């Protein structure tokens, strides 16, 4: 067999193996995590590898926490505005009484 054919076969085998790996990787990623099997986040806080499965959860939770904090702050500001409006209306009412 000539060298050219050997190289072509080697490249074909390489492509097949790479494709197999990519397909299995995608299938693994797409399979949902079983309940209660999420990795513990506390152990991974010091790790700097952002592509790790555990750290992805950590960042997702951080984003959820920050969005929750934002919502809470919006609710608090709305409440404070309502309170201030209520107080001002009271003052207005009292002024009317006077």
């Amino acid at each position, binding site marked *: *067999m000539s060298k050219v054919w*050997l190289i072509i*076969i*080697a490249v074909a*085998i*390489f492509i097949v*193996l*790479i494709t*197999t*790996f990519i397909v*299995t*990787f995608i*299938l*693994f990623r797409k*399979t949902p*995590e*079983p*309940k*209660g*099997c999420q*990795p513990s986040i506390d152990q991974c806080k010091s790790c700097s590898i952002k592509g*790790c*499965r*555990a750290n992805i959860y950590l960042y997702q939770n951080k984003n959820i926490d920050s969005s929750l904090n934002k919502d809470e702050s919006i609710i608090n500001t709305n409440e404070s505005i309502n309170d201030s409006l209520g107080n001002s209306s009271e003052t207005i009412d009292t002024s009317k009484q006077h």
Partner: protein
Amino acid sequence: MTQSAPFIYTFLLAIVSSMLADNVVLNRFYGICSFVGVSNKVKSSFSMGLAVCFVTILASLVCWPIFNFILKPLSIEFMDTLTYILVIASLVQVVGLFIKKYSPSLYKAFGIYLPLITTNCAVLGVVQTNTDTGLNFGLSMANALGTSIGYLLVMVLFSCVRERLETTTGNKVFKGIPIALVCACIMAMAFMGFSGIGE
């Protein structure tokens, strides 16, 4: 019976010698990263050892026919390392996929250690040794079995030592990794006592 007896003897001898005399961690220095990194607790090191056992045997089972029936007849043996890396990585993904889907309890037990096996050079080292030394299928399986049991044994022993070391009060300079490395050195010397067992 007369023909099978020597093979069984060779098979068992190969298992014992690759487990003790030619230990993968303490003699060949493969898989040192997981040996030091995951041996803090007995439970985690046992999980890691079991996962490595499973993947090593499976990788040897798959890679030996690939080398002898595809790469060797086509005269493309130079592709062996690349092929083994990709086969091991794919195997780990497939095993992880099945465990994730059909056995959540096992998936929980393995945890983060299953994807870590892809980067464990002990698995690649065993598969490469099997083909480089020209072992037949039975002996390569014996080598894989013995090596992986040896890895599990050393991991559990070393984690027991490290757990004991955590409770001791010693010099602060040696606390943690330094004393662990000293212990690994002493363990390696102890395992040298098994040398010559397979000769």
